[in-house]
């Protein structure tokens, strides 16, 4: 190995380390905080002298944290599903079909993203209540899907446009309907984009707070951000419990994402290879 290459390898590894440290550092600190007993919370040490699991125990006592996680999982999954389905089909139409009004749709969707949610929460609450969705998970699924649509539409349209149009035409010449060409050719090739959007939409719904606070009130429909916002007491902020809760809710997300990435891409690209 030449010195040039060795230096480049070292440089690369250092950059990787720095990157990992920057993104992971605060999370690592959160993990350390989650096993620090309350008494040691103010003693700033890199590792507590008496690590404890009391915070992990206490977050499940006093509130149905499992239920809360389940609620968030269902809401986020359904949101992702709908957003990808509705957004994906619409994005395909925008990318490859001919009709008037494309710019209006994309512009309108973007306009939705430009409006601060705080300003529309009141009329939105009235709409949700009128639809009888108050305090159900559907209130969140519907609103999260709607407000994640602009991102889905814009990103997916871009990715679909990037697939060479010749492939699309070739599929149609071979006898596919436009929709079949979409599912067999475009979707598999755009799989990375789909996975990326899926992750982003899932995480948006997972961590969304304003709508969750306003539309859901009982434990039956509560989601994680509101659940964690309920940890602080009248005056005290239990940093340890909050840290434990955040670790508990983040790890499954990461596992899901790792799994999801591999499976979806494998599942979709398998179709393309055969077709």
């Amino acid at each position, binding site marked *: 190995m030449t010195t040039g290459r060795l230096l480049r390898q070292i440089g690369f590894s250092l950059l*990787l380390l720095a*990157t990992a440290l920057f*993104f992971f550092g*605060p*999370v690592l*600190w959160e993990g350390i*905080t989650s096993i620090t007993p309350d008494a040691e919370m103010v003693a700033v040490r890199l590792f507590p002298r008496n690590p404890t699991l009391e915070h992990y125990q206490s977050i499940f006592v006093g509130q149905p944290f499992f239920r809360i996680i389940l609620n968030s999982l269902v809401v986020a999954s359904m949101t992702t599903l709908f957003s990808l389905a*509705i*957004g994906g*089909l*619409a994005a395909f*139409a925008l990318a490859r*079909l*001919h*009709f*008037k009004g*494309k710019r209006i*749709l*994309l512009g*309108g*969707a973007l*306009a*939705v*993203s430009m*409006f*601060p*949610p*705080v*300003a*529309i929460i*009141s*009329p*939105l609450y009235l*709409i949700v209540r009128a639809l009888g969705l108050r305090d159900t998970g559907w209130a969140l699924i519907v*609103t999260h*899907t*709607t407000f994640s*649509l602009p991102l889905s539409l*814009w*990103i997916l*349209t*871009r*990715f679909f446009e990037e697939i060479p149009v010749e492939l699309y035409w070739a599929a149609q010449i071979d006898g596919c309907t*436009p929709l079949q060409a979409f599912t067999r050719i475009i979707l598999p090739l*755009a799989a*990375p984009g789909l996975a*990326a959007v899926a*992750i*982003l939409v899932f995480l948006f719904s997972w*961590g969304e*707070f304003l709508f969750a606070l306003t539309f859901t009130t009982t434990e039956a429909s509560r989601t994680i951000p509101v659940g*964690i916002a309920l940890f602080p007491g009248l005056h005290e902020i239990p*940093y340890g419990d*909050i840290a434990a*809760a*955040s670790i508990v*809710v*983040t790890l499954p997300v*990461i596992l899901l994402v790792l799994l999801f*990435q591999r499976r979806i891409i494998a599942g979709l690209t398998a179709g393309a290879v055969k077709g």
Partner: protein
Amino acid sequence: MRSSARLGYALISPAVLLLTAVALIPIAAALYLSFQKRLPIFQIVRFVGLENYRFLAIDPRFWNSLGNTLYFTLLAVTLELALGLGVALLLDRAFPGRGWIRAIVLLPWAIPTVVSSRIWEWLYNVEFGLFNSLLTEGGVTHGPINWLGDPFWAMHAAILIDVWKSAPFVTILLTAALQTIPRELYLAARVDGAGRWGIFYHIVLPALRPVILVVLLFRTLDAFRVFDAIYVLTGGGPGNTTETLSIYTYKVLFQTLQFGYGATLAVAMFFCVVAISLIYFGLLGRERRGA
């Protein structure tokens, strides 16, 4: 062509329905409110035309928050884009453990803001936070830095959090975009004798440009509307030096209960963002979506 158009309308109809019913109607309501003086506490509901907008033009707190928001957005988005792109490029080549690093990079975005704000608040804590501990013990600073209570530091502390949280967003999308660049292009370029920078400049950047534009757009929209992190950390203080438009709007709406003026502020935010988007499209989006 006609059947294609029909199919097209059919495919976009769910999206149109959702957006109209759930998003555009409340936005229209807010627009309508912006022309009203509406103080529910005093049961005042009155159409006042452009009076709210005229007040907006001379409202010093609006201009202060606009300035804060622009500064925040400019700095945060630039850093996020640079960092996100850098990390995406770094992770583009295969190496053992890449999947894990990708998952780690995702973490800041995966943690709900209400949670990460607390963690960062603790990190920035003047007396017990890790940052000050490391800095003073490392001999870098003399005394503790008042991260969130000093007019200069508070804004930059908030920017750092946003960069930490949002760079993954950029990375995820650019990584996906990088994956769609055919490897043959790289090989061909290398055969032609192109070096690193050449490949980056002539192959990668042009291929990424459309996605970069969308990423830039959405990051700007999000940064412009930033709320949660700053609200938890500083509440807009000290002395309104970190008060962004979102925070001002929130306070006007939910602490002073001026629903009309609050809507006016939201509409003003909207137009600012439209202006910025038009600038992006003008400068960078030279290729328009076709057909």
